[in-house]
């Protein structure tokens, strides 16, 4: 294992950087998607609820690896077929799209459940004071929903960070893909994968400790 670290250490750390880049970009967009579709599922409008439910069901029904292949190969093919022959999508773009869509569906469910866990009276009180639906949601309901959502969100973040490994199949140079390469080159799969696993674990432990701190700070403010 020392030999791997010697030869490929910097390469694997750089790959971890790519993993984090992919994860953080995806989490950012997943939060936006989750908020949007989570809100769609909670408003009092049948059509919006259906759109929200369809998104969640459609994405949850697709294994991430299938979604990744579809976005990376299917979407460029479709767009090229529409006449935009020079359209290209690199593996980072495809990876972020696939992972955001995937994580966004789970975030939507977390946010929907969080909003529904807040007593209806909070929204009614805010509306009765003349606040718009949006203001009531963002100033009154969501700040309270966030508290119940945080543990689930942290959990989802960790899952998404690990799910980046699936994007190795579309050639994105993240940690898992790089480890496959390293393992094949040196012919020491056991050591290479152990190192890879440890790297994921360390990063995830650091991130979850950090999130626990944030959680504690938010809860203290009540």
């Amino acid at each position, binding site marked *: 294992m020392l*030999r791997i670290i010697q*030869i490929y250490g910097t390469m694997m750390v750089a790959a971890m950087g790519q993993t984090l880049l992919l994860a953080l970009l995806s989490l950012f967009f997943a939060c936006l998607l989750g908020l949007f579709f989570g809100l769609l599922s909670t408003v009092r409008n049948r059509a919006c609820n259906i759109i929200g439910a369809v998104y969640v069901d459609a994405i949850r029904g697709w294994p991430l690896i299938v979604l990744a*292949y579809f976005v*990376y*190969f299917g979407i*460029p*093919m479709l767009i*090229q077929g529409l006449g935009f022959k020079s359209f*290209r*999508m*690199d*593996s980072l773009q495809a990876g972020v799209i696939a992972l955001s869509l995937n994580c966004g569906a789970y975030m939507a469910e977390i946010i929907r459940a969080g909003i529904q866990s807040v007593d209806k009276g909070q929204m009614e009180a805010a509306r009765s004071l003349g606040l718009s639906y949006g203001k009531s949601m963002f100033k009154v309901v969501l700040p309270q929903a966030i508290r119940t959502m945080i543990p689930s969100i942290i959990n989802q973040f960790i899952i998404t960070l690990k799910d980046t490994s699936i994007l*190795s*199949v*579309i*050639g994105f*140079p993240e940690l898992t*893909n*790089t480890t*496959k*390469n390293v*393992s*094949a*080159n*040196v*012919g*020491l*799969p*056991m*050591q290479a994968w*152990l190192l890879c696993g440890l790297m994921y674990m360390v990063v995830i432990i650091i991130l979850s400790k950090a999130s626990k701190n944030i959680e504690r700070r938010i809860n203290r403010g009540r």
Partner: protein
Amino acid sequence: MKKMLATLMALGLALSLAACSTSSGSSAAANSNNSSATSDTASGSDKVWLVATDTVFVPFEYTDEQGNFVGIDVDILAAIAEDQGFQYEMNSIGWDGAVAAVQTGQADAIMAGASIKQERIESGWIFSDGYYTATQTIAVPEDSDIASFEDLRGTSVAVKNGTAGADYAESLKDEYGFTITYFDDSPTMYQDVIIGNSSACFEDTPVMLAYIKQKGIALKVPEGLESEGSPYALAIMNEDNQEFLDLFNAGLANIKANGTYDEIIAKYLE
């Protein structure tokens, strides 16, 4: 420490091996104690050598239309075993699985179009004599005007993890200024070129030609870009299995001399 780790992981691996091994001939009982066998207890006649290989690496190993597991590796090993009179069992468990199996002693040797690499030798791999020298080259879309490595500048090329093609691409990328995307399997690699995300892919010449012909995919191989080639060999990790390497080398020399080798190559690459 290193040994303990390997043993631990071998336990887990043994399960997965049992699940996907395609048994050919001998009983599974031979599987359980072979790793502890030493050269003096195992005489050439009753020892069953366990050889792990890849699942699909056309034309070296693959399943044909009739469902038979065939290929250059498969036929050469059979011919050598017949010539030397040893028993063996070939398990098709995929490249990564095969490498891991040998590393943990679940298999005695790997024969899967593995090229002799300095890095692998330094990691403790012991290679037989080369049984085939494959050149590597590129494939590009049929309508592409890429005709030299210079044309790859500023583009991205696709390779398969851990292949000689990947090594070839890595040796050229700085000089010609292109980047490399690594894929797990050949179909995805080819697909990436067809869709236009990668400008070309690097792979063994015979493998690529066979694949393009067999599947009728819209790729072509520009002329004159082949590498010098790297020899494929059977490899072991446990020095106690040197006996098997000797048997293999002796048999290989014999089948090359008596024409069997040429017949096998011709059968797959005509």
